[in-house]
């Protein structure tokens, strides 16, 4: 039987990691992720988790240890944030191109400079093209559930890719919520018993040369297969959500979730991560006023669920994307560009970029109301320009800073 606990997002992450019975863990502390490492170390020291942990000297080594371990056929887990992720970039990229199903939580934190500790998905979104699968989740229950699902997806023979479960630093990592914790037997029934690779391994009984110098032709074949595996993951992610729901009774829409969208909806706000809670409130309020606006939460950014998103937006006139990150060079947020790419074949949709909540700034319900009203206005306008300038949603007016 499952039981209910009040726990922080970080505790939800470490609890899920322990339930997944990893063989090897390696992680290096960084705010706001640190307590994940502490709690797993404690679980091992107290004999509650039968696993080996490497007390590494850096994130670069954390990822490298896990790659070695995964090549030795171990199930592996790590967690990091911002500068730690940046520091591990070299082995990070390689985890996916070696097709190692490493699972790593990311407590999202803004990238410096200026010096900062607080939330923004700038860290993990900046590495969205490193070949990993990336989930972005909304609350602590979803952290726990998604980490379990991630092991299932990562080790699926149709996928064999590493996975990030990203959750906003402090907003989730340090906030306590009610979390339903499944018991070990339930999780054991859900996950594969162990990680047993037949595609890449280091074993003196079955000698293999891993990663010899490879010509471009063969490399292209590997890349093509990697991209195909990412596409297959869209289905596998949906399946994992379904199976999980059947076993645990909680349903997280696989890659995208539509909230209060029906055939009357004319505008949609698109969100990522913990901001979705405030957005739901705003949509509830505006719908009670009769405004035709709904919400779409993107749960998986890599692979990008373009087909599902297109279907959800098929009857919609205007979308607004709220990004807690920036896309340098485009003067928008990153998810805005992703959405734009997905709907590039739908000239009838007007789109509006918003940037909000950088460096951990609160994205309030009122901000979402402002954004949503703007989207509704665009939806009702005839012949409006498709290319809207970014609107910065800020709590303190710029005047104050002058």
């Amino acid at each position, binding site marked *: 039987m499952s039981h209910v606990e009040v726990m922080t997002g970080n505790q939800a992450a470490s609890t899920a990691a322990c339930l997944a019975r990893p063989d*090897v863990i390696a992680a290096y502390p960084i705010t706001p992720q640190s307590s994940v490492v502490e709690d797993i170390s404690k679980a091992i020291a107290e004999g509650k988790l039968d696993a080996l942990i490497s007390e590494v000297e850096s994130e670069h080594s954390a990822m490298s240890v896990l790659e070695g*371990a995964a*090549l*030795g056929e171990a199930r592996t887990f790590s967690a990091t944030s911002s500068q730690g992720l940046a520091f591990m970039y070299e082995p990070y990229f390689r985890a996916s191109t070696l097709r190692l199903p490493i699972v790593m939580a990311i407590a999202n934190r803004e990238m410096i400079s200026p010096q900062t500790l607080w939330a923004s998905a700038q860290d993990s979104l900046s590495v969205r093209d490193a070949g990993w699968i990336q989930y972005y989740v909304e609350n602590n229950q979803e952290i726990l559930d998604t980490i379990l699902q991630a092991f299932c997806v990562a080790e699926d023979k149709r996928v064999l890719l590493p996975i990030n479960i990203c959750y906003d630093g402090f907003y989730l990592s340090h906030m306590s919520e009610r979390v339903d914790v499944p018991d070990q037997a339930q999780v054991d029934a859900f996950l594969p018993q162990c990680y047993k690779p037949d595609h890449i391994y280091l074993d003196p009984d079955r000698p293999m*040369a891993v990663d*010899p110098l490879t010509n471009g032709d063969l490399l292209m074949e590997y890349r093509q297969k990697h991209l195909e595996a990412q596409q297959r993951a869209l289905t596998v992610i949906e399946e994992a959500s379904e199976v999980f729901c059947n076993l645990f009774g909680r349903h997280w829409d696989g890659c995208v979730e539509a909230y209060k969208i029906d055939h009357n909806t004319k505008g949609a706000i698109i969100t990522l991560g913990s901001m979705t809670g405030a957005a739901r409130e705003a949509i509830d309020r505006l719908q009670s006023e009769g405004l035709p606006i709904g919400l779409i939460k993107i749960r998986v950014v890599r692979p990008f669920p373009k087909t599902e998103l297109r279907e959800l937006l098929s009857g919609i006139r205007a979308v607004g994307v709220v990004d807690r990150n920036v896309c340098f060079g485009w003067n928008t947020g990153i998810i805005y560009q992703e959405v734009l790419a997905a709907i590039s074949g739908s000239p009838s949709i007007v789109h509006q970029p918003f940037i909000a909540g950088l460096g951990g700034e609160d994205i309030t319900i009122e901000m979402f109301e402002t954004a949503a009203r703007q989207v509704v206005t665009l939806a009702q306008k005839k012949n409006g320009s498709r290319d809207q300038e970014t609107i910065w949603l800020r709590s303190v007016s710029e005047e104050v800073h002058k």
Partner: protein
Amino acid sequence: MSVLDVLDRPDVISPGISACVGCSVELTLRTVMKVLGRNSVLAIPPGCMGGVGVVGWDKKSGAEIPVFFPLLTNTASMLSGLRLAYKRQGRDGIHVVAFAGDGASVDAGFQALSGAAERNDRIIYICYDNEGYMNTGYQRSGATPKGAWTSTTPYGKLQIKKDMPRIMADHRIPYVSTCSPAYMKDLVEKVEKAKRNKAGFSYLHVLNPCVGGWGFPPEESIEIARLSVKTRYFPLYEVVNGEYHITVDIPNPLPVSDYVSRLKKFSRTSEVALTEMQELIDQQWQELKALEQVRVNGA
């Protein structure tokens, strides 16, 4: 079993690798792997040995044992992870081996190496020191000696060589030694000790004369290596559980000029620099002798 029997064992490194004629690194690698045997996994980071095709699979190049490229920067930590995986499976007999250049060990991979040594992970880490980044065209490394020409030190390097074996010994790992391809018996015995070391990290530092970079005829590789020892430029010693022991004593050393004059890379080295080099060598030998007197736990 004699050293000759070991050297007679079949090679696990394929014949067709494309190292320079007279490469002392290739000889060292083949020898080391004869000692360690087939129940091993070999990590070769980017560098000459990776570049000449040891990480391969087609039997003309490559190795007959599992072999892989770690990154230049993470050889030791990848092996730490591999060791943990084998530990989980109770496969303690597998040798987890790094054969890494000075660049991959002394410079770019130093943090990972130091971390793994501090954790005392059970890895056999062999650094082949050819005193520069050969694979990328012979640029300076932290192991390049003062005065040596490299493609980034056209008038000779200004700084002294990083004393890596001593740094590793100061991690207090169970086994550290220095080795030379000119002293095969000594080398084989040291690799055997590392092979038997179940207590944790083993670090072996081999000074490998390099035909491609140092400027000497291929047939002189071993002679140059021997001179590096006979001049005390590169003393052969080991540090077992913190205790230093010189394994090849050199009571009557040759002057370092006998070594330096044989190598084109030192052709611009001045008299003053040579004197300084000799002083450093004398100083380091004295330190080593003093360290030999120190006994751990009053033993």
